[in-house]
């Protein structure tokens, strides 16, 4: 069910910036695996995920999704319907939570009744069916993350790229997101999670990369990377 996303020596520079946000990154996000994307602020984690979701076009290097470069064969919109990126601070649209979750289905021309049915079903699986009628813009950060995940899940994505999905999420909602991610990966979905939270990544990701200033400086298991960082800092290993 998942798709393989391969980034080969990709570079990216934001307009007006001197420094490249990504400087020759090569990484593969495999189906049925959770890849952690670690690194300090401004390391290029978000840029990497957006590039993997075909939201940013590399200035150099190639992105291959199922072996095809969407920027060369003109399949960008098609790819975006299979690979969904969820923002660190998910934007909510005017209207209710239900309006937000049905949006991607409406964009695809799905009849309203069917879209609502799917949205309610997805919201129930995430435990947010009780807030479907609330104004989306009034939600807490944790609720917003869940709504954004629901908005992505109704598309039945083959790859889900989550940017800090647990940031500012309370202890009640955190297990719901973790459980959902684990279920998805069991079904073969390709998952990448950008996070500062090493502890959460340890529970979730089987593989991780560590970025610094747009370059991968470590790759392996989350534990290996955490150990490497501890050694680098010269701190005692716990």
């Amino acid at each position, binding site marked *: 069910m998942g798709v393989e996303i391969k980034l080969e020596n990709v570079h990216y520079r934001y307009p007006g910036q001197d420094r490249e946000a990504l400087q020759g990154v090569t990484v593969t996000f495999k189906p049925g695996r959770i890849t952690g994307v670690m690194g300090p602020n401004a390391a290029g984690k978000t840029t990497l995920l957006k590039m993997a979701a075909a939201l940013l076009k590399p200035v150099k290097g190639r992105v291959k999704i199922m072996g095809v470069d969407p920027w060369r064969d003109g399949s960008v919109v098609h790819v*975006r319907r299979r690979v969904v990126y969820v923002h660190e601070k998910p934007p909510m649209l005017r209207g209710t939570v239900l309006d937000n979750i049905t949006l991607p289905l409406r964009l695809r021309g799905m009849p309203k009744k069917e879209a609502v049915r799917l949205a309610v079903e997805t919201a129930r699986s995430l435990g947010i069916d009780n807030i479907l009628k609330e104004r989306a813009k009034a939600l807490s950060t944790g609720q917003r993350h869940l709504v954004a995940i629901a908005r992505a899940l109704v598309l039945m994505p083959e790859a889900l790229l989550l940017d800090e999905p647990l940031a500012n999420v309370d202890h009640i909602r955190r297990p719901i997101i973790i459980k959902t991610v684990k279920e998805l990966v069991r079904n073969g979905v390709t998952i990448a999670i950008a996070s500062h939270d090493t502890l959460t990544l340890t529970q979730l990701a089987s593989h991780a990369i560590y970025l610094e200033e747009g370059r991968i400086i470590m790759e392996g298991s989350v534990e290996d990377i955490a150990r490497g960082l501890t050694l680098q800092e010269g701190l005692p290993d716990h």
Partner: protein
Amino acid sequence: MDSLPSIVARSIIISGSATLIATAWSIPLAYHASTHRRLTPLVYAFEALVGIPTVLVGLLLYALLSRQGPLGWLGLLYTPQAIVIGEALLITPLLVAVSYRVLSEKSRELWELAATLGATSSQAARLVLSESLPGLTSSVIMGFSRAIGELGVALIVGGNIAGLTRTMTTSIALYTSMGEYDKAITLGLILLAITVTFSILARAVRREWE
């Protein structure tokens, strides 16, 4: 002499038409500027023109529309249409500048959201515009308030002709010069009520839709 209700109605129709026309070109322009970085200098130019004196716009338009002017053959001088064109030009910088601010705040984030949900370019544009509707409506209402309250354009290219181009502002100027202060003050209060009502409406629309 025009009756007060007909002057008020004419003013609303002229300024409303000017606002509609200016909206039709300003919002698409602001949207394109918010999505194409190379158009930003154009927005800066419009921002610089927001406070352009109304008499200057009136004067320039007069030069264009007068019999010897390049557009004199259109025969628009001293018609309501001339005021509509003048007011539309006058409020365009305001509409572009404010709409650009509204759209540029949201367009990147919303465009990206739409794209990641598999929207086409036109669907993404519709989403950005629809989400920005409260702010855009406020900018249109601000444009209307500026248009209905201006005097220079209406006086210079409209000519203050009774029953044809006499608006609230030109009437206030006329009544004041004639010493008919009660009529001038009545019209002034109506004008103030209209602009305040629209300002409250803009705020209410924004609060309701957001």
